[in-house]
């Protein structure tokens, strides 16, 4: 696989949220507004990058049978350090996201990348994978947060463009499921149309050849 492909696959083709449906707990919990989604995405990207680097470096000294406990120890330590640093140096961000930071530990996307990628690939590839996956995750959370904020509060990135309250359900938990479901449906619809078009073209070329 080329380096560019390792990086780009996480953004759209294997997007952790929209395609693989991984780590949905923080996805649904934090995306009540675009800025919260972005913050959570960046925090996750940071942890994912560090965990992929660490696990790629120690992969040879970890026997297979204890690999999962080792991954969890690494991820949990990184998250705790991140939480302490945020509390100390960005108290504002900690006030809004603090509740969700420990959730990063149980984000199965991070464990998934450790298990499926970083424990088998080189350091450079693992960094690219983490950046791509992390960016895809951030993008997904920001989009979902923006959609829910627009529909639920009539604003985007705290910029109010509509008076009144909007549809309350999108701010509450069910709105997370509704929003995510519709975004996935739209993405799948676009993908299917594309595939159908590609198939049609292939058939046309084949008939011309004959």
């Amino acid at each position, binding site marked *: 696989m080329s380096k560019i492909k390792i990086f780009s696959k996480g953004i759209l083709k294997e997007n952790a949220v929209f395609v693989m449906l991984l780590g949905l707990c923080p996805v649904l919990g934090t995306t009540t507004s675009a800025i919260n989604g972005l913050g959570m995405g960046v925090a996750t990207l940071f942890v994912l990058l560090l965990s992929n680097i660490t696990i790629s470096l120690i992969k040879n000294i970890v026997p297979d049978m*204890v690999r999962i406990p080792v991954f969890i120890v*690494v991820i949990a330590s990184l998250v705790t350090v991140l939480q*302490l640093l945020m509390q100390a140096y960005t*108290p504002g961000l900690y006030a809004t996201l603090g509740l969700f930071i420990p959730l990063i530990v149980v984000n199965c996307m991070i464990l998934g990348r450790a298990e499926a990628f970083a424990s088998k690939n080189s350091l450079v590839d693992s960094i690219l994978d983490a950046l791509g996956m992390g960016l895809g995750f951030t993008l997904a959370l920001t989009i979902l947060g923006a959609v829910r904020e627009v529909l639920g509060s009539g604003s985007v990135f705290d910029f109010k463009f509509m008076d009144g309250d909007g549809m309350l359900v999108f701010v509450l938990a069910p709105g997370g499921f509704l929003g995510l479901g519709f975004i996935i449906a739209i993405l799948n619809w676009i993908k299917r149309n594309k595939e159908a078009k590609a198939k049609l073209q292939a058939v046309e070329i084949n008939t011309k050849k004959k």
Partner: protein
Amino acid sequence: MAKLESTLTNMLLSLGGIALVASALLGFAYQATKGPIAEANQRILENAIKLVSPSDLKESKLGDMYMLPGGKDSLACYPVMDASGKLVVTAISTYTDEGFSGRFKIMVGFAPDGTIVNTAVLSHAETPGLGDKMDKSKADWSVQFNGKNPETYKLTVTKDGGDVDAITAATISSRAFCDATDRAYTAYMKGGRHE
């Protein structure tokens, strides 16, 4: 370097060693951030005290913190003096367990006669878009408490026969906010005034 075999010794050494390094890292990070975290919390506290003091108060001195009994927990009080040393406002950090998502904490500033100067939310987990409107950064709801004396101003929502307009669709959060404010007021009037 070949991958280590999954023998018992290898597993023990690897897992133990990594756990040891991780705990050392955590201990170091805790030590290194202890000071800055305390400072950050102190700044948040001072900021909240400033928020519940009269806005025209230019120079102020913070008196010694003292505790008052208030329900299940004690309330921390921070007297604020003006430049001449006269007590202007007492900021009381109060709480409620009646919130929609458990306990939340607010700061209420009382003038010496018990009039509410201002309120500020310290920490909460109320529903975003509904209950969190009690926070001044989200909505102007809590402004209605300013300048009211709970002696004549009934600290319950209108639905319960009081004088407080509840947040639309967030009556529980509004009731809880009143509960916290009332707890601070009751404690303060029971001889909690320190000059």
